[in-house]
């Protein structure tokens, strides 16, 4: 895989802005992400949805297996979806418009840390719409701020390294309170998914592997 090395230097945090856990620019061990990638058996075809931005590193990692990568990229849409919380129909329509048409079902979904930026109604709408496009048994990987009370104002820009660690390449930004979704919260918001495994990461994020 090319070009996947973390940035060597990062701008110092402005005074009063404590570095968010995922914004340290340091590679992050994410065992469940590694587990997910290991499960992508090279002998089979996989369909993977990426809710984050298109990244060369992700393409390169998934290019090792027979795969179709669907770049959904909801990063810029989270706030708009949150604003539609009062009107479930409109919210659902907006989500449907952002997702690919239903076709070949997804086997895996890379949520990265996007779910932290969706309020409960939007979180439910997005993940339900994803579930409708998923194969039974579909896996979803997510990073949730749980022990960490603060998170950056905008989603991280995680890219996978060749060793399957993750690194956030987003520039430092101000922080805001994290929703700190608990497993129970996620269960209520995403009733069609079950937590297959969860793991607390060193940076205070909870790593989830969810299954449809």
């Amino acid at each position, binding site marked *: 895989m090319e070009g996947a090395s973390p940035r060597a230097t990062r701008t110092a945090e402005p005074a009063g802005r404590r570095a968010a856990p995922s914004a340290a620019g340091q590679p992050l*061990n994410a*065992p469940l992400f590694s587990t997910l990638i290991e499960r992508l058996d090279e002998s089979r075809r996989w369909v993977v949805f990426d809710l984050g931005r*298109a990244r060369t590193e992700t*393409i390169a990692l998934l290019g090792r297996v027979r795969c179709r990568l*669907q770049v959904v990229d909801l990063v810029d849409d989270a706030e708009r979806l949150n604003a539609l919380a009062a009107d479930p129909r409109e919210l659902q329509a907006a989500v449907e418009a952002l997702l690919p048409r239903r076709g070949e*079902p997804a086997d895996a979904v890379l949520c990265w840390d996007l779910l932290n930026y969706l309020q409960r109604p939007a979180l439910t709408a997005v993940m339900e719409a994803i579930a409708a496009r998923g194969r039974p048994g579909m896996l979803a990987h997510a990073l949730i701020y749980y022990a960490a009370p603060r998170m950056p104002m905008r989603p991280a820009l995680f890219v996978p390294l060749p060793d399957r660690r993750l690194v956030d390449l987003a520039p430092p930004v101000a922080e805001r309170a994290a929703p700190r979704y608990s497993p129970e919260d996620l269960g209520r918001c995403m009733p069609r998914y079950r937590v*297959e*495994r969860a793991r607390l990461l060193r940076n205070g994020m909870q790593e989830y592997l969810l299954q449809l």
Partner: protein
Amino acid sequence: MFDLGKKSGSDKVQDDSTRQQDRPEIRNEAAPTPRRPAGAREAAVIGPSIHIDGDLRGEEDLLIEGEVNGTVELKHNILTIGPQGKVRADVYARAVYVEGYVEGDLYGAERVGIRKSAQVRGNITSPSVSLEDGAKFKGSIEMDPKAVESALGSGRGGLESQKSAQPQQAAAKPATNVSPKPVEPAAKSGAAS
């Protein structure tokens, strides 16, 4: 229908023998558009003030800086959608390089390169895909060699059959019934890593 003029085969930049037929090649940066041999014809240009509605087909390299709505087919040649180009079309070419705006599916028999200034909404099918950081892309990238081969076919027949039988996703081959490997015990909470 807009037909661009034919050109000699000597303009072919990359020999067929070099075509990658294995797994799709993913590059961190789009390869530079190959330089034309001395004395060879420059690519045809659709300038910024030109607006075309319809099918565009030809046998020479093409640079689009204007607006094209319809389909673009340059099966033996290189298509570059320049920074000012706006294409709302499905595109079929030997190689496709995007620096501007595209809404449509991209089929590159040899390569598709998305440069950092590009905005692309559509599906990409090619044995070699490159995406520069900063490019905006929404859609699918077919990286299954069998599906790529099936979608691209060989020669004109492949393109024609692909256009007539194009599914809503880029993948022409339906998925096999894939299920993840057996799951591990549920809801383990591990120690911090």
